C-alpha cells in the first residue's frame, strides 16, 4: 500500500470520527434499550417511536435545565445477553445518568443487576412480571402495571362476563408464567374453576396441540398472555379448531388494530386488556394529551396498530425528564431520588410511584389505568 493511500485512509477515518451528529455535548443523554430486531422487533420499534415524539416535544418546549435532551437508543435484539450489553454500553461509554427499557420481562430482569452494579436508575415502560419490583432492586421505577394489578383490575368483570370455568395459555417466560399465576389466583378467589393450564415457546407458531387440549378441557373463557403475533395465530387456530371459549388477552401488548388487520374474522368476539385506548381518547384520564399524541403519531406516518405500545415510550421519557427537572442535576442518584416524588400527567393516566418489595431496598411501582376492550365485527368497542 502506498503512503498516499494510507494517508488518505487516515484522513477518511478522521473525517468519520469528527463528522458525526451535530455537537450535542451539551444535551442531556437518556439511554433507551429496546428490542429493535428479533422476535419483539415490532413492539420495540413502536416504543422507540413514542419515545422520539416525547424527545421532540420536550426539546421544542426548550428542553430541561436549559439543555436539550438526547435519546441514545440501543437495540437489545430481543435477547437477554444483548440487553445486558446495551446497558453496559449506555452506562459505561455514553455515561447516561438514567435508562429506559427493556420491553420484555426477561430482558428487564437480565439488565437489573447492572443497575445495582453501576448505581443507575431505570424506568421500566412495558414489563409486567411481578419479580421486577419485588426482588429488592431500588433502581427500578416501573410505570407499566404488574400482572397482579391487571388481574385485580379484571376481578370485578368475572361476574359481569359470567365466567364459570377458565383455561390459561401463556408464553413460557417470565411474562407469561407470571401472568398465568396471578390470573389463576384471582380467578380462584372469585370462585372460577381452572381447567387446562398450557404454555408455549415464545417463538412457537403452531398451537394446535395446546388448543385441542384446551377445547377438551371445556371451559367458557381462555386467558392468553403473549405478544401480538402469537395472539394473532392463537385466534386463527382457535377458529380452525372450533374452540368456542371467549378469548381474553392480558399484558397490554396485543394491539387490537393489528389483530383486526391480520386475524380478520377470527378476532371477532375477543377481549383485550390494554393500557391506552387510542380509539376513544376521551375515555382516558388526560384526553388532551392523548389526542395530541395520536395526532402526532399519525402525522409521522407510524403504524396505527403501534399506538398501544408507542404511548409507553412517550410516558417513560416524560417521567424521566420530570425527575431530571426536579433533581436539578444529571447525577444518577439525584434522579433516582427525584423519581420517587414525580407527579406526571401521562397518556395512560397520572404517573406516581408507590413502594414495592423488601423494606429498605424497595422498587418503585406506578398504579396505571387498565382498560378492557372488545373486538366486535372488525371494530374496537368499549366494554
Amino acid at each position, binding site marked *: 500500500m502506498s503512503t498516499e493511500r494510507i494517508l488518505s485512509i487516515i484522513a477518511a477515518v478522521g473525517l468519520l470520527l469528527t463528522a458525526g451528529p451535530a455537537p450535542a455535548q451539551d444535551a442531556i443523554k437518556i439511554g433507551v434499550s429496546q428490542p*429493535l*430486531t*428479533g*422476535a*419483539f*422487533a*415490532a413492539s*420495540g*420499534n413502536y416504543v422507540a417511536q413514542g419515545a422520539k415524539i416525547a424527545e421532540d416535544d420536550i426539546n421544542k418546549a426548550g428542553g430541561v435545565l436549559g439543555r436539550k435532551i438526547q435519546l441514545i437508543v440501543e437495540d437489545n435484539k*430481543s435477547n437477554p445477553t444483548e440487553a445486558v450489553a446495551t446497558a453496559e454500553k449506555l452506562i459505561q461509554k455514553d455515561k447516561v445518568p438514567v435508562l429506559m427499557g427493556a420491553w420484555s420481562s426477561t430482558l428487564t430482569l437480565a439488565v437489573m443487576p447492572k443497575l445495582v452494579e453501576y448505581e443507575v436508575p431505570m424506568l421500566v415502560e412495558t414489563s409486567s412480571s411481578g419479580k421486577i419490583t419485588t426482588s429488592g432492586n431500588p433502581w427500578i421505577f416501573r410505570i407499566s402495571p404488574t400482572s397482579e394489578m391487571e388481574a385485580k383490575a379484571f376481578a370485578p368483570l368475572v361476574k359481569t362476563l359470567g365466567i364459570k370455568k377458565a383455561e390459561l395459555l401463556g408464553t*413460557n417466560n417470565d411474562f407469561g408464567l407470571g401472568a398465568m399465576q396471578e390470573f389463576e389466583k384471582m380467578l380462584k378467589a372469585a370462585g372460577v374453576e381452572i381447567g387446562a393450564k*398450557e*404454555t*408455549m*415457546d415464545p*417463538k*412457537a*407458531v*403452531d398451537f*394446535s*396441540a*395446546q388448543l*385441542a*387440549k384446551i*377445547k*377438551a378441557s371445556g371451559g367458557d373463557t381462555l386467558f392468553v398472555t403473549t405478544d*401480538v*403475533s402469537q395472539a*394473532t*395465530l392463537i385466534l386463527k387456530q382457535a*377458529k*380452525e*379448531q*372450533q374452540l368456542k371459549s371467549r378469548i381474553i388477552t392480558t399484558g397490554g401488548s396485543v394491539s387490537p388494530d*393489528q389483530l383486526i*388487520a*391480520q*386475524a*380478520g*374474522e377470527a378476532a371477532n368476539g375477543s377481549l383485550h386488556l390494554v393500557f391506552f385506548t387510542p380509539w376513544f381518547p376521551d375515555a382516558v384520564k388526560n384526553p388532551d394529551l392523548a389526542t395530541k399524541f395520536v395526532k402526532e403519531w399519525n402525522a409521522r406516518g407510524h*403504524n396505527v*396498530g*403501534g399506538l398501544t405500545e408507542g404511548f409507553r415510550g412517550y410516558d417513560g421519557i416524560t417521567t424521566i425528564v420530570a425527575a431530571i427537572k426536579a433533581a436539578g442535576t444529571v447525577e444518577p442518584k439525584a434522579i433516582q431520588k427525584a423519581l420517587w416524588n414525580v407527579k406526571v400527567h401521562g397518556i395512560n393516566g397520572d404517573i406516581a410511584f408507590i413502594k414495592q418489595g423488601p423494606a429498605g431496598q424497595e422498587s418503585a411501582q406506578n398504579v396505571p389505568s387498565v382498560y378492557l376492550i372488545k373486538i366486535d365485527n372488525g371494530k374496537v368497542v368499549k366494554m
Partner: protein
Amino acid sequence: MLDQFLQHCLNALMLGGTYALLGIGLTLIFGIMRVVNFTHGELYAFGAYMMYALVMRLGIDFFAALVLAMALGIVLGGAIELTLLRPLRSSDIDITMLVMIGAWIVLQNSEQLAWTGVAQSIANPFPAEPLVFGSLSVSWNRVFVLLVAMFLISATYFLVNGTKLGRAMRATFQDRETAALMGVRIERVHTATFALGSGLAAASGALLGPIFVVTPTMGDLAATKAFAIVILGGLGNVVGATVGGFILAFAEEIGVAYISSGYRDAMGFLLIILILLVRPTGLIAQKERIS
C-alpha cells in the same frame, strides 16, 4: 377423550406434512452436499415474504404466486451458491459455516429493513370455515398444504432417485473426482442441488406463510426443526426426512396432550437423542463410504 386423541392425531398429520417439507430441502443441501446451511431458514422466510409481496402488494393469483415464490427461491439459492459457496469450494467446513452464518444474519436483517418487524399476514382463497368431521376440525388451507407437500416430496424423491440429474448429484457428493472423470459437470451439480434445496425451503415458506404470520425471525424456528428432522431421518435421505417430519410432529402433539406443553420443543429433541442412541446414523440410514 377419544375425540381429543383423534384431533391430536389429525393435527400431527397436518403438522407432519409441513415438517417433512422443511426437512427434504435441507436434507439435499446438508445431507447430500454436506454444507451446514444456516440460510435454510432465511430461504423459508424469503419464500413467505415473496408470497406476501406477490399476493398482498401486487395482487397476483394465490396459486401463481406459490409457483413464482418457489422459482424466486431457486434463483436466490443459485445466487448464494455461485457467489458464496463456489469460491470456497476447497476451503474447510468451518470457513463455509462462518460464511453461511454471515449470510443468515444479512438475509434476516435485510428482511426487517425491507418489511419492518411488524408481522404480516397473507390472505388465502380457502373457505374461512374449517372442514368438520363430527367433533374434529381442520382448516382447508392446512389440507391444501399437506397435499402440495406430499406432491413436492414425491417429485423430489423421483428427481433424486430416478433422473440423470439425481444420479449426477449422488455421484458428485459421493466422490467428486471420479464423478468429474466420468464427465459429470460437478460445478453445475453443486449449483443445481443448492438451488433446488433452497427452492423447496422457499416453497415451504410460501405455503406456510398464509397459515402463520410472516416475520423476519420466522426462519429461526423453521431451521431448528429442519436440522432436527434431517438428523432424525438420516442425512441425505428424502424418505428419512419425510418420516422424520411426521415422527417429530406426532411426538410434539402427543407430548403436549399427555405430558406437558412446556416441554413441547424438548419432546422432539428428546426423541432424537433416543433414536440416535439406538441408531447413530439416523432412523433410515444409508450405507456410505467414509473416505
